């Protein structure tokens, strides 16, 4: 089973999640309660999956995601957030997280989500799909430079169906595609979203004059 790290500053939450994961057979190799602990322990234990609360003491969940992905790009980060502050969730996914779940999700939903991200399958809740759709629609309406990747019509269609609560299986049926194809489209959508982040960072660097020397 996958090696997992749990990051949450609420001890009761951390323990509950850890207990559930261990009971389901996951190998919980580390737990952390602050961003700094998370990054150090990640480097020491190299887990494959990180279950991460966004609201943790400095550095916050978004920065931790960025650092972890920079250290080991293949890491799967599952965001588990209580408040669901949408800008933070979107920022974390742009930074490389591959799943998002609100804390009110049931134990089975959590375990299913961890299994899916561990298998390399993005966990898109309808809420997250709505945010991502909004991000692409916003950039399509405001971008003038055109260096941010856009979604194909098919990808937009699939994202809309995810946001409307259809499962991958239902989407595959409705669009007469294979389940695998739907998954590939969802992965592409995430990859393009993460490129938005890179384009923004590059622009920022150029504006700040950090690209020359």
């Amino acid at each position, binding site marked *: 089973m996958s090696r997992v790290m749990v990051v949450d500053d*609420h001890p*009761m*939450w951390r323990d*509950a999640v850890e207990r559930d994961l261990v009971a389901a057979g996951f190998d919980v190799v580390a737990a952390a309660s602050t961003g700094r602990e998370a990054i150090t322990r990640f480097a020491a234990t190299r887990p494959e999956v990180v279950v991460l609360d966004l*609201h943790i003491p400095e550095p916050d969940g978004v920065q931790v995601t960025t650092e972890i992905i920079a250290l080991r790009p293949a890491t799967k980060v599952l965001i588990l957030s*209580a*408040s*669901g*502050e*949408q*800008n933070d*969730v*979107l920022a974390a996914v742009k930074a490389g997280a591959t799943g998002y779940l*609100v*804390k*009110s999700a*049931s*134990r089975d939903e959590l375990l299913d989500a961890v299994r899916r991200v561990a298998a390399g399958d993005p966990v898109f*809740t*309808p*809420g*997250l*799909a*709505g*945010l991502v*759709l*909004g*991000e692409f*629609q*916003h950039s399509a*309406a405001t971008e003038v430079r055109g260096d941010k990747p856009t979604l194909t019509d098919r990808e937009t269609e699939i994202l*809309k169906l995810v*946001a*409307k*609560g*259809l499962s991958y299986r*239902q989407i595959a*049926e*409705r669009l007469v595609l294979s389940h695998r194809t739907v998954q590939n489209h969802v992965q592409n959508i995430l990859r393009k979203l993460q490129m938005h982040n890179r384009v923004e960072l590059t622009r920022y660097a150029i504006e700040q004059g950090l690209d020359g020397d």
Partner: protein
Amino acid sequence: MSSAAIEVESRLFRALAVLRVVVLVNAVGLTVYRFDNFVSPAAALVCILVMVGWTAFAVWAYAAPGRRTAVLVGADLAIALGLLLVTPLVKGPGFQASVPGFWVSGALLACAIHYRWIGGLLAGLALAAVDLGLRQEIDQSIYGNAFLLVIGGGVVGYMCESVQRMALERDEAERAAARAEERARLARAVHDGVLQVLALVQRRGGELGGDAAELGRLAGEQERGLRALIRGEQSGRGPAAGLVDLAAALAELETGTVTVSGPATAVEMPARPAEEIVAATRAALDNVRRHVGEDARAWVLLQAFPDHVEVSVRDDGPGISEGRIIEAGAQGRLGISESIRGRIEDLGGKAELITGATGTEWELTVPRTGVNG
């Protein structure tokens, strides 16, 4: 005096320091040019030295707020008046231009800046009275200059006061914004803690079953309510006056069985169409409860485009057969559907009902006419 008022005064005195040098160069230049108008070269030289010396001293003295005393301002005005008064002695009684000329404006504006409109007005009156009193004859331009002194002093004093008041108001607004920001930060921390606990109670309650499950369900309701509230209060989401955030308004419809998705940014719309869209969405959700079941799942998706918004409400019920819709229409039982359609069409939009194997879906499309962003 508040720090904002002192800051305004300091800026004005820095600007005045530049003006003092400009009018000094002008006064010295004119004195040298009309050197032979003076009774004696020594008198002219003394006048020049007084102006140069006092200008240098005044620039230094006014630079620090602590040195801006009544004595300094009084001395400033007294020297300007003194140079006016000695004019008949050093240039003869029939003089054309006074010795200091425009140089007196330094003292005039210092009075105006430090004592506001009343200081400027009184200094202007004093300078104008002395200047006019010394003249043997007063022509249009001499009268005009004196009049400008009086008016200018008052106007500059009044402006200084206004700018100080604005700076005070700005400071107050900045403090209020900082306080609000801090409150919001604290609220976020508190809310997050409460949400964590509510989510945990909901989760554990569901696992324990029995009474605990009921407790968990109630905690879940509160958790969603609070989450929807926070969603509407995120920083940078305060809609402009007269507009409401449709995304936050729709988020309030979320329950244990209804998921609401939308963009991370606010979707601003005028209040009336937003209310109508929310009402139509609520009617569609009522319809789901009525026809599919009390605990039927439903999904609301809001999409915002520059020229229109789209709201979709989907359930995963068995769908409605073509026959049933026609039958219901024939029996006049299409009340809810007609009310949804009516509301949306009144806004210039369109409402479509799509039904199939993967549930029934309302697609509401409403133009955002006259709304930017």
